[in-house]
């Protein structure tokens, strides 16, 4: 096992998507929220494909102990 696992953010690649929504199916209205209440910067969330996520969390799960692996006395 590798001694560390890269962070979600370190695996981010611009433009990758882990999920899609159906296209908006109602008429789009503009200016529903005043400018000063809107966010002005792009959120810095990771951009990952579904398979990236599955592999990342499978890797993390292999670095974790659970009751289905063996007994774990509370407090340990």
């Amino acid at each position: 096992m590798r001694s560390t696992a890269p962070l979600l953010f370190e695996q981010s690649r611009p433009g990758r998507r882990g999920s899609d929504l159906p296209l908006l199916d109602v008429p789009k209205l503009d200016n529903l929220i005043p400018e000063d209440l809107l966010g002005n910067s792009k959120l810095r969330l990771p951009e990952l494909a579904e398979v990236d996520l599955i592999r990342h969390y499978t890797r993390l799960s292999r670095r974790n102990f659970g009751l289905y692996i063996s007994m774990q006395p509370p407090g340990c």
Partner: protein
Amino acid sequence: MRSYVPNTSEERQAMLEAIGLSKMEELFIDIPIEARLKRELSLDKGKSELEIRRHIQSLVGNAGDLPLFRGAGAYRHYIPAVVKAITSRSEFYTSYTPYQAEMSQGMLQSIFEYQTLMCELTGFDASNASVYDGGTACAEAMVMLRSATRKTKVLCSSGLHPEYLEILRTYARFTGFSLVELPLTKEGVTDIKALEENAEGAAGVIIQSPNFFGCIENFKSAADLIHAKNGLLVAAVNPISLGLLVRPGDAGADICVGEGQPLGLALSAGGPYLGIMTAKQKLMRSLPGRIVGQTEDSEGNRAFVLTLQGREQHIRREKAASNICSNQSLCALSAAVYLSAMGPKGLKEVAEQCLQKAHYLKEGILAIPKMRSRFEAPFFHEFVIESEISSAKLNKGLRKRGFIGGLPLSRYYKGDEGILYCATEANSRNELDEFLNALEVCAK
């Protein structure tokens, strides 16, 4: 559909360039030209996971859950299948508190990543590993106000979720706070004049946006006012709305709390949910509950541990920041997977669709005779409608026609016949139109 092919067109182009090609077709050069398909495959346009789910449900004659048009703190959103696939791994759902870091690196790293996501989403420096739910987070933030300012007078908007208010009143009653509830204006937002009049000597103010009635509050004005009186602002948020709205940290808030259920958690009859708590760095040591930090192991490798445990009750006993020493790890994991699956563009799309569909629904309802809007402030995905027809009668009729209508406000406010409606990206146009038709019939 973008998400079914993991690599982006830029990455595919880079791979082609690496092997000295410029177009994908050049990969097929060994296939004789006469044997190649010279047109696009005649397939439907790609469908999203949600559309496929709806299609399969219709094939087996199962419409799934009843179409739902209420939220009031618990929201129906599309949850990508990857969320459940990951949280169903037993190493996550049967793990114990990660006190022993050597055997808990996976869970500790996942919590560390959750905390980073929450900080990015809300615009703050520090996050805890979560508390029970949005209401608990709100009350714990009130305790933080006292430890930061040594004052016990706390202002809160009456636009807070009534259940959050109940928890605040309970905490206040038994831990010596004096709670001042600020009224709403007729537009549906916190009365900023009342805030100004009561701000003197207050530890801070707690305001929720969008508030319980769906209206969007102005955190910036509230922060300026309360800071001028040396108080702090606690911003309670719906995390989905931050796909569009200004982050509370950018608007000047000092602490942010929120109900994390919309981030990939099913309604599940009310729980388990997820209490989000983030704060500015100077308030980090007043945060309740667990915090995971990054460190190095004996070989110099990056590793994760529970940190700043001096705040917690198993170390400080009665002097602890809080009596909560638990967190909602599996729910926090769901939120982290959801946000990572959506990414910045996906979250923005969810928020935009919620906004648009709720406005479409409101416009449709107001076109029905006898229906009136109660508030005129800008709203996100919920709004209050009044009419002469009793909410019980309307909802009974809707239920008969296969819909769950809005939330009758009488549940929380005695005698209030208003109804709080909600629409999210999970409500299809078809559902919205059928609901409006049914409501029109019920209102006759």
